[in-house]
């Protein structure tokens, strides 16, 4: 084997991929060129296993200004404004070095959004950790939460939502998915394109160091015992510099000097320059010795592959050099012209005047391998889906209820979100802890409603339906506060795609997202794929995380989930079926993950959401809450304890279901509403008139939650269990 070929393999390329490179170049690459190819063709940058399927996702709609393919997606919200958003994973680095991994995950997604010209107005984070009692979990939880807070708080961007779930399937591969939403004038959107022959290419932001070299390659492989040794591939964050970069870029965007801009994220200078040239069909010439360096003795290879943070590549109009420099001087940021746009279609790299790389841009950016990997339904699926509900022992219902409410998956995550600044910018009308966050748009009557999440257990049992449920539920959350779902971003976290059963999960999940987005009319405008979330051959639950953005035209017409008034009538919209497959109850009380994910009728889902939004618009709902994990029991508990003050309720569940099933079933397309007594009949009649099942459950009031014949517990105790269930498990790890 040639030296370069074995080098290629050590960089994560396959032997046949190396052959293809040699064929494309007409010669063997040198070391720097090979480094560039290896990161551009890594799974992380090229989506080579997933591209064949991502194209199936719906990406268009009248509200879409920019779909996938740019740094982030853009959706019109009227009034000449648009929201820019994207979700991205930082899973592998966060497991290796939780603080920096999570921090730079936040930093990266923020850059993706402000690169487009938008000021970030909200962050959300979706975290998946191993079992709460796994020895590493408290350490990882603490590190990740501190890292997210450390970065986001400093940036002055409120962290308003997200979710956190625990399951043993994430023991060796945690998930850290970060989402940023930005606000931009619809006519001032900037893109990552390097056009205009002769235009200068500026490097701005932090100096380049040796951190994160081959981070993208690391994120494209499984973990093994040697993972700890990968720490040098993790980047180090500097939120202060990013804050300066943000303000300086927004100042730059006020001018008309910018031709194109892209942040240096995964694969750093390589991917930013090659992608920008690729999109424009142009060439680039760069002098790497001009790149600001953090240390001496760095090589062109290191400069091209470093993933040092807080850097941007900007192409500006010829002659604008001085004006651009003035802006970055004000913010004390490096700003250096390192090259220019050419017409050659080639990337020509120089080092002290000598050409050290000469590559055709097209193949690098567009001709990465694209695999149609084989996929096959796993043989074990029938076994895990089998669940004989009748054979489950009937637990003590009060005890089961206590366990579910205090489970770290259900319990309040205040311990996490009080470590995040969720109020800065003074737009947070509803912060973390509700069904969806509500962030007001200053200068208008509008607000955006934001929700993100995914139930990995459902996706494990039924990836297609689980993925569709993730879309449906985030939309349901947005509707619960009165918002109209607009569009999604996704972050598809899976195991090793070279295994047919993992690839099957991926392909199925794409189908599920497609079906749900089609019916709910929420196209996918941006996204990210994270594969190889696997350690020693054991993959995570498939977790296609969904970030949903919705719009409230009038921020005054919104609801929260907590009961607000004694005597209000509690209504259930939707119906409860015998569906405890994959439920929190089954896991927490019976120690099992089995059965099938709940059914999902998307037409029904859409109708239920429309109905609830109408009731909110008409001012008849005093509260609205989506029924999800933990079923009616958990939802009622949350309604009782999350209002301005705790309130009891007396409820009666009718029907032929087993009591535990009735309490904890996770049937979809359900809401609990509380309405003033005088409106109850009208709301029920309205539901009947549009063919939706709706029933009167009971009334708000008293100091206990009474579910007749099943549960009778003081609200104060529920409050205590729910508020402390999480902190009790993780406070210990604070100093660990």
């Amino acid at each position, binding site marked *: 084997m040639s030296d370069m070929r074995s080098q290629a393999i050590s960089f994560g390329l396959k032997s046949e991929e190396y052959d293809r490179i040699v064929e494309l170049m007409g010669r063997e690459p040198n070391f720097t060129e090979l480094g560039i190819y290896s990161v551009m063709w890594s799974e992380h940058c090229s989506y080579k296993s997933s591209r064949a399927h991502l194209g199936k996702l719906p990406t268009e709609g009248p509200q879409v200004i920019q779909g996938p393919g740019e740094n982030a997606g853009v959706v019109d919200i009227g009034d000449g404004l648009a929201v820019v958003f994207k979700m991205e994973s930082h899973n592998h680095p966060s497991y290796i070095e939780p603080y920096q991994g999570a921090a730079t995950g936040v930093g990266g997604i923020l850059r993706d959004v402000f690169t487009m010209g938008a000021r970030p107005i909200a962050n959300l984070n979706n975290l998946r950790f191993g079992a709460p009692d796994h020895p590493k979990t408290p350490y990882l939880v603490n590190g990740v939460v*501190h890292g997210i*807070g*450390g970065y986001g*708080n*400093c*940036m*002055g961007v409120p962290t308003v939502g997200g979710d956190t779930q625990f399951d043993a399937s994430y023991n060796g591969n945690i998930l850290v998915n970060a989402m940023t939403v930005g606000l931009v004038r619809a006519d001032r959107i900037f893109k990552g394109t390097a056009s205009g022959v002769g235009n200068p290419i500026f490097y701005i932001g932090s100096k380049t160091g040796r951190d994160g070299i081959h981070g993208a390659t690391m994120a494209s492989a499984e973990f093994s015992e040697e993972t700890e040794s990968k720490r040098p591939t993790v980047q180090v964050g*500097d*939120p*202060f*510099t990013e*804050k*300066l970069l943000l303000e300086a870029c927004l100042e730059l965007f006020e001018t008309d000097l910018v031709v194109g801009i892209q942040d240096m994220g995964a694969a750093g200078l390589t991917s930013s320059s090659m992608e920008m040239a690729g999109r424009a069909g142009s060439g680039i010439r760069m002098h790497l010795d001009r790149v600001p360096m953090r240390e001496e003795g760095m090589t062109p290879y290191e400069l091209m592959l470093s993933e040092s943070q807080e850097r941007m590549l900007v192409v500006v109009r010829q002659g604008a050099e001085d004006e651009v420099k003035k802006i970055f001087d004000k*913010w*004390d940021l490096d700003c250096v012209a390192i090259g220019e746009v050419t017409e050659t279609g080639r990337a020509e790299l120089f080092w002290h005047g000598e050409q050290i790389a000469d590559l055709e841009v097209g193949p690098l950016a567009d001709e990465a391998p694209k695999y149609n990997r084989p996929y096959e339904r796993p043989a074990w699926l029938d076994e895990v889906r089998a669940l004989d509900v009748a054979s489950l022992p009937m637990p003590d219902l009060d005890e089961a209820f206590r366990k579910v409410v205090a489970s770290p998956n259900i319990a309040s995550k205040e311990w996490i*979100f*009080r*470590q*995040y*600044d*969720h*109020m*800065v*910018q*003074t737009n*947070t*009308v509803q912060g973390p802890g509700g069904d969806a966050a509500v962030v*007001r748009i*200053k200068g208008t009557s509008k607000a955006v409603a934001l929700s993100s999440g995914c139930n990995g257990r459902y996706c494990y049992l039924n990836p297609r339906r689980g993925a569709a449920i993730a879309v449906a539920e985030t939309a349901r959350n947005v509707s619960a506060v009165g918002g109209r779902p607009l569009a999604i971003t996704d972050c598809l976290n899976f195991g090793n795609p070279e295994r047919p059963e993992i690839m099957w999960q991926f392909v199925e999940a794409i189908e599920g997202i497609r079906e749900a987005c089609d019916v709910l009319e929420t196209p996918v405008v941006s996204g990210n794929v994270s594969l190889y979330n696997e350690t020693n051959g054991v993959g995570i639950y498939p977790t296609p995380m969904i970030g949903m953005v919705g719009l409230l035209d009038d*921020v005054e017409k919104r609801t929260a989930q907590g009961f607000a008034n004694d005597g209000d009538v509690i209504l259930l919209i939707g119906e409860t079926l015998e569906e405890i497959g994959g439920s929190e109850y089954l896991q927490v009380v019976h120690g099992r993950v089995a059965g099938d994910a709940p059914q999902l009728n998307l037409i029904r889902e859409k109708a239920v959401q429309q109905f609830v939004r109408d009731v909110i618009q008409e001012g008849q709902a005093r509260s609205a809450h989506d029924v999800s994990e933990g079923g009616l029991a958990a939802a009622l508990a949350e309604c009782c304890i999350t209002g301005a003050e705790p309130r009891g309720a007396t409820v009666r569940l009718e029907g032929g279901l087993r009591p535990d099933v009735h309490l904890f079933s996770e049937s979809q397309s359900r809401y609990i509403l509380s309405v003033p007594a005088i409106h109850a009949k009208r709301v029920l009649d309205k539901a009947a008139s549009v063919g939706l099942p709706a029933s009167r459950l009971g009334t708000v009031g008293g100091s206990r939650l009474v579910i007749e014949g099943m549960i009778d517990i003081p609200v104060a105790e529920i409050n205590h269990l729910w508020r402390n269930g999480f902190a009790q498990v993780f406070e210990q790890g*604070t*100093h660990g």
Partner: protein
Amino acid sequence: MKFGVLVFPGSNCDADCFNTIEQIGQPVRYVWHKETSLRGLDCVVVPGGFSFGDYLRCGAIAKQSPIMEEVRRFAAAGRPVIGICNGFQILTEAGLLPGALISNQSLQFVCKNQYLRVSNTRSPFTHLFRNGEVVEMPVAHHDGNYVADPGTLKELEDEGQIVFQYCDAEGRLTPESNPNGSVNNIAGIINRSRNVLGMMPHPDRCADALLGNTVGRKVFEGVLSKVGI
């Protein structure tokens, strides 16, 4: 009355303060930290955030900024200066207020709504409150744990310079209601001349009816009608 809101690299509540001042109908402008004049301004606000990344020590680098010399002169002339959160930290570093702010006892950032007792109303910033009034304001900081030597504390108490204290809903100064470990539950103080305020809670975040709380306006509005204090 014209307000100036200082902007350091890393300030991130500058816009929130700016908006609050606009909400109370007063003219306001940003003052970049490299400026050297506060001419034409009647009140200076040092906003929250992470000036210079809070690297080294919160406020330690900001106090070296060119504008701070002018802020010292402005304060010495008896004009009102309001430091919020990081602004409070900067003012203690700059020696305009006594004591220091160190890491929260929990070693965690804390962001939540917090009850405060207005412990002294004899200042331009607090005279619109009732003495002993309990109000709610957001806190959001990692280093809000106020410390001072016993002599300084005694002086603060004797001179009535402690204006806000963390408390529970009934106004009791309990350890449980103290979010960061501050000595004597101190949340905000004024200087001896009563024209410089430093407070960790954010009046700039509770000045908008849509967010459900407008009590923070009083801190700013107080300055407008300070005559007679």
